[in-house]
């Protein structure tokens, strides 16, 4: 097996009869009630802890034990892939496989195929300087998915794209994707600003340099974060204000 890539496999409690839950030794299986249960933070955290690949196996509609729980799970994975792309992670390291318990498929072959497909990427953390950046990015992503904007928007994805609203309209999948990508980008940058200033107070310029985002844009985000009560001015050095993340709750 490829230098023992560390793989986590989240499976739905109901997806397989117990005799078919067998996996290669470098794979840990974690059973959850439904893949709809997977908070995006769980999967991002797995990567942050150095897992090289995550495969989620849930139940195809209509065989989800929780009616459409797995359809929600499916949307979460889509969201996560977009987030992973932002953090610089190969999106292939996350895979969703929808099975039907009736199909009697073997979990091990599904997992082996996955490992085979990602083996060329090698380990996630390569023991180099870049690792620190990736970890920071992942932490920012985790921060972003705990904030309500993304959760609200992604939680409503199915309602927005599948159902017609009271005015007889429906948002197309493309429109929704544009919306969420826009929100994602903003929230991701804001999370980074938040994380940086959580460590130690920083100026707009410092932040801009650190995350490679135009300082005017950084300032805009800072205004939003301040309005939300997530950021405050720590002190003013010369004429430059230094911002600090505020603890919430």
């Amino acid at each position, binding site marked *: 097996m490829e230098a023992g890539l560390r793989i*986590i496999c989240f499976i739905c409690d109901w997806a397989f*009869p117990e005799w078919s839950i067998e996996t290669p030794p470098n794979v840990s299986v974690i059973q959850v009630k439904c893949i709809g249960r997977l908070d995006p933070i*769980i999967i991002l955290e*797995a990567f942050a802890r150095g897992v090289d690949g995550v495969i989620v196996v849930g139940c195809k509609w209509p065989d989800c034990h929780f009616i459409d729980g797995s359809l929600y799970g499916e949307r979460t994975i889509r969201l996560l892939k977009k987030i992973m792309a932002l953090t610089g992670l190969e999106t292939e390291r996350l895979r969703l496989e929808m099975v039907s318990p009736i199909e009697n498929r073997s979990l091990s072959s599904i997992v082996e195929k996955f490992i085979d497909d990602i083996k060329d990427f090698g380990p996630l953390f390569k023991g180099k300087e870049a690792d620190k950046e990736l970890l920071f990015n992942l932490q920012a992503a985790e921060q972003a998915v705990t904030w309500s904007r993304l959760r609200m928007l992604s939680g*409503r994805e199915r309602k927005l794209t599948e159902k017609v609203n009271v005015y007889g309209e429906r948002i197309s999948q493309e429109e929704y994707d544009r919306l969420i990508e826009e929100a994602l980008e903003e929230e991701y940058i804001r999370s980074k600003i938040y994380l940086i200033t959580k460590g130690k107070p920083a100026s707009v310029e410092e932040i801009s340099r650190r995350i490679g985002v135009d300082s005017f844009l950084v300032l805009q985000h800072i205004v939003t974060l301040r309005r939300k009560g997530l950021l405050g001015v720590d002190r003013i050095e010369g004429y430059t204000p230094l911002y600090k993340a505020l603890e919430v709750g």
Partner: protein
Amino acid sequence: MRGYVKKFPPCRGACPAHVNVQAYVCLIQMGKFREAVEVIRRDLPFPAICGRVCFSPCEDACSRINIDQSVAIRSLKRLVADIEREQGRVAVKPVPKKYDEKVAIIGAGPAGLAAAYELAKLGYPVTVFERMPELGGMMRYCIPDYRLEKFVVKNEIDYILGLGVEVKTGVEFGKDITVDSLKRDGYKAIFIAIGAQLSAKLNIPGEDLEGVIHAVDFLRSLALGKRLNIGETVAVIGGGNTAIDAARTAKRLGAKRVMILYRRSREEMPAHPWEVEMAEKDGVKFYFLVAPKRIIGEGGRVRAVECLRMRLSEPDETGRRRPIPIPFTEHQYEVDMVIPAIGQVVEISCLPPEIIGKNGLIEADPVTLETKIPGVFAGGDAVTGPASIIEAVGAGKRAALSIHRYLRGEAIEEERIEETTWVKDWSLLEKKERRYESPVEKPHLSFEEVRAYLERVQRAARFEAFRCLGCGPCAECLAGVDLCVKDKAIVDESKCVGCNLCVEICPFGAIVKNESGVAQVNEEICKGCGTCAARCPKEAITLENISTDKILSALSNALVVRVV
């Protein structure tokens, strides 16, 4: 309050005995076959019987029917019951008597036996009076062996008797015993479940010729071991399941030609389409839109039936199309045996006159099953007219509850489960045909074949069970079985901002907002899938047992083990 809403999945709601279908199907998914039988027995003492011959209203109600086909619930029930019989049932222990009031049950059909079962479980001394030598009613004497083997009936009745039910056979109500004599003998409550045992008459000339035998009498005589002369050509009259059973039995006993004469068309037949199909496979011929006018004899024996052709009226107010004879269309079928099967009626001659209703049935409250005589309850076919085993069981259960409350001096009608709730409306989806042959059922197997067959089908059964959508709320099947971590969503009210997201996404509609706009989880419905918790914008929802932190620590553990 008369009737309250209990949140049942549609299968359980549709079952007159409210058998916890979702629970046992779920247990079958996990391969817990014996536990599954136990769960069935909580509500129904006849898993093997109903697994064979129930009309399974549960399958008609099954949500899966809107997607492809309903789950083969009945076959699954049969399978687990058969497996239990193969492996040997845990011996039943008599239930200690908790109460002194003696209860008399008249008639040992499914209604009477189900009532005895429930009352014995509650701890009452119960005596069942039956005029036939064997218990079981129609299940024992009329449903033919090829559909329901006698040893299956006996096996399940033995279970009921094992709980400590007393039986007196060969005792006829109305002759050997009466309501008054029973009361004198110290019985405090009586449940009359005498069924509808008499054949309805054709009332046409020639009905008393030799060679004419009514379906129920025909089947009963055979079950009693009497030898009957089976004709070469047999005409069965009627379109119900009884007609089909009589026709197929005659065919099996060697009749060369068997025909069923029915006065309406195929669509109107009360018999289930799969029964009709099986009869056709057996070689029974169907003639529609014909009604007998007289039976013609020769030397006192049947020679032919003379029939009239019929046409159907336009649907009347009730939507039924009545058959109307077409004049001058008399024609004859040469036969040497006629089996009328046009229904059964209640033998009212044995009953106290005050409980007989206008329609020749016993009059009883449809919910509580009380009759006009205090302490006397009635149910089953005797009250509804010919129906089904599962309805009789449902009646037996309701009567048992009423009797218990009557004897305890409680209000009899309170808190009855009447209505059920669809958890999710699947009906928007296109409805598909119901399947009649199941992947796990093989109807005709010899005793020896069964064991090998069961082995093979066990996996098939589990996959069939996996087709269950689990569309109802938590079925609480696993109490004491220790299989499923029961979980519930919990809302932290101080964090909830009332955004409504959880209300929208809960697959089961378990979350509503209260007056102050805070999300509230209905614990009875929540199945703990956590779809809401994974999305709550304010992280205000967590799960009682498996919180996100718990999943994260499972993750840590997995990684630690890997390093070592």
